[in-house]
């Protein structure tokens, strides 16, 4: 066992990379759930985004266009869910599960020609001089630009929900769709927009996996990341900054346990492998323990179908 091989600076830098896909997907789902919709298809939208982004980035040679394509792919798939649940009143839980299975299937189909291909490299945001600084370089300045996009998204969504009128309307729709309808807001339009945003974010998260984190395409490569994102939204109490904590915690423990396994710690690998899930959930439960449901921010209309009956 050689713990000295674990470099804390590299650990922090790599946990940010490990956490970003989950962070992106969880942020999207947070907005969807704040609008009162439970979309369990995050996993399916992520992996669809992963292959859309990967394929387009390989074909065009541009990761930027790849990420755009991933967002569009995820949003398109989510619109399938949107139309089924919002116009055809299908059950959200069943439709979301079906969306996951569908996404896994269609991504394998689309990805047949891309197994073993290397994607173009995604660049950083800051000049190398900054990234080469000791300690702060790798942690703050050394990342690819998507990491900064995801952090910007945390702040953006927080401010949107808290300060903007559109965010207020979105929360109102999630809290009581009947009241929002009675006041003249278009519940279905708001929800469709939220679902599309959630799909786009999940797609970006998937593409981050296939273009940066791994980086290559394999079938089923999301391996449950979408489900972790869903859990983090709930345990984070539908708050963007707590989603960030949850995602980074999960990423951190994941990277740490891999390092510990590599260092040959005398704990069996199975326990280490389950530790990210257990620790993330435990910490988030402790953060939110002892509060009422309203203080937690669970939208009261979550998962309920809206039908304007009058």
């Amino acid at each position, binding site marked *: 066992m050689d713990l000295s091989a674990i470099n804390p600076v590299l650990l922090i830098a790599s946990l940010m990379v490990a956490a970003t896909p989950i962070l992106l997907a969880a942020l999207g789902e947070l907005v969807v759930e704040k609008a009162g919709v439970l979309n369990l298809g995050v996993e399916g939208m992520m992996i669809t985004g992963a292959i859309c982004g990967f394929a387009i980035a390989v074909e065009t040679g541009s990761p930027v266009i790849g990420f755009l394509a991933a967002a569009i792919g995820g949003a398109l798939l989510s619109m399938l869910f949107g139309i089924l649940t919002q116009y055809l009143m299908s059950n959200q839980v069943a439709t979301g599960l079906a969306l996951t299975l569908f996404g896994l299937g269609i991504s394998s189909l689309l990805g047949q020609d891309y197994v073993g291909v290397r994607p173009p490299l995604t660049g950083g945001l800051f000049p190398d001089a900054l990234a080469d600084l000791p300690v702060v370089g790798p942690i703050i300045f050394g990342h690819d630009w998507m990491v900064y996009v995801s952090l910007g998204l945390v702040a953006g969504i927080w401010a949107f929900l808290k300060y903007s009128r559109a965010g207020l*309307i979105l929360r109102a729709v999630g809290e009581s769709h009947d009241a929002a309808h009675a*006041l003249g807001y278009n519940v279905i339009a708001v929800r469709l927009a939220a679902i599309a945003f959630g799909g786009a974010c999940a797609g970006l998260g998937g593409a981050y996996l296939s273009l940066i984190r791994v980086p290559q395409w394999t079938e089923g490569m999301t391996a449950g990341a979408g489900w972790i994102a869903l859990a983090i939204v709930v345990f984070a109490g539908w708050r963007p900054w707590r989603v960030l904590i949850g995602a980074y915690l999960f990423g951190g423990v994941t990277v740490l346990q891999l390092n510990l396994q590599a260092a040959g710690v005398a704990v069996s690998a199975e326990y280490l492998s389950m530790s990210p899930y257990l620790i993330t959930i435990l910490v988030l439960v402790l953060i939110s323990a002892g509060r009422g449901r309203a203080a937690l921010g669970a939208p009261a209309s979550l998962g309920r179908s809206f039908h304007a009956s009058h």
Partner: protein
Amino acid sequence: MTGTIPLLKIDGLTKAYPGVVANDDVSFQIMPGEVHALLGENGAGKSTLVKMLYGLVKPDAGALTYNGAAYAPTSPHAARETGIAMVFQHFSLFDALDVAENVALGMENPPPQRELAKRIKDVSEAYGLPLDPGRLVGDLSAGERQRVEIVRCLLQDPKLLIMDEPTSVLTPQEVEILFATLRKLQSEGTAILYISHKLEEIRSLCDAATILRLGKVVGRCDPREKSARELAEMMVGMSLHTPSREAKPKGPVALSIKGLSAKSASQFGTSLKDVALDVHEGEVLGIGGVAGNGQDELLMALSGEIGSAPDAIVMGDTPLGAMRPNERRALGLLAAPEERLGHAAAPNMSLTENAVLTGRVRKSLTSNGFINWGAARTFAEDVIGRFDVRTPGPTHAARSLSGGNLQKFVVGREILQSPKILIVNQPTWGVDASAAASIRQALLDLAAEGAAVVVISQDLDELMEISDRFAALNEGRLTPPRDTQGLTVDEIGLMMGGAHDLGAVA
């Protein structure tokens, strides 16, 4: 008052839904500064009409004229821009948002939050409706919630304010405050379209009334010149039967509650605190109070849905507090909760199946774990026949019944099990006048046969009409009961407001 042009002229408005014409050629007009009452039973088409005025529903035919110009709102936004605001009966506040956010959602162009908070404070104080803009609506009382709705409307300077049953959840004192506000608005030239079942209120507040029955205008009058009974008979279209009862001496104590405390099962619910009460055989005990002060919890604690200390509830010599609902039913304590669909009845199950759900124990509808469907069907048909439940038959799902008919079924199902003690919550909520009268008569008849009946209700007139003694719930505490005879409205208001030391056992 500005001349003779009506503020809003309604001309031949018609709206049909599949199977029912909600509004059939409705015409009337509202003058500026007038308080106009819209009267009618449940299902008379009042809600559909105001939804058309507010742009939520599009009429099939007919025209609206506002201040001399054609008015055809396509959404509530358009209605609000024209100067029409609406206070809803329910469904328009958001529990998890604060007061300022709720107000902002009902405005077209809300100012920034800080300025809005200040305006809410100013307006609410100017009209005697103090409100703290930073509080969560879920934590407010029913009266305060309504203030939020009214202040939301006032901030937009409406020319016409539509109020849909605004006083159904208020204490008498809160009603006085509301009326003072409305009169102030009226003196400033705002017209008000006022919908209510409470005829005395309409007589004291309104200048004109239009009466709807089955979607048609059946009468217009000046409510100040009619008696409440005349108005009610215009609404129903027939003469009303007043429940009758005979005075008789109190029987022995049937149910004794002491030190009953129970935690609410729901998030915004109210926990019961040290409730004490004796109910006698042969009496009807009315429990009033503003909604959300522990009514649901009291019913659940008595029916056995919430457990309590064994000695807190005693029937005869038997401590019931720790018993499950079916054990209590076997002893003769039955309950009919307020929420018809989902609590008192399972919406998607047939009436026969719903009859089995509570009647199993006392009517012996099961043997060896198997349901005796023949007996269950007979029991359901008995309820349907005796309580005039309008349904094609007991095989129909509970949700297919109208609210009033299902209420008759739910109450009748318990009464026909010949309970020794019956607890009902809101027995006539949302039920039209003639059905309500028959439910009340059935409760009185049950008491006359020697059962103890506890009626929890928000309808004070109902409680005064049928109960022998009256107590009020306030924040989970129950006042000592007092004889209904001779109780004044002020005293009732004080009891509902939480005055516990008001000379018990008068």
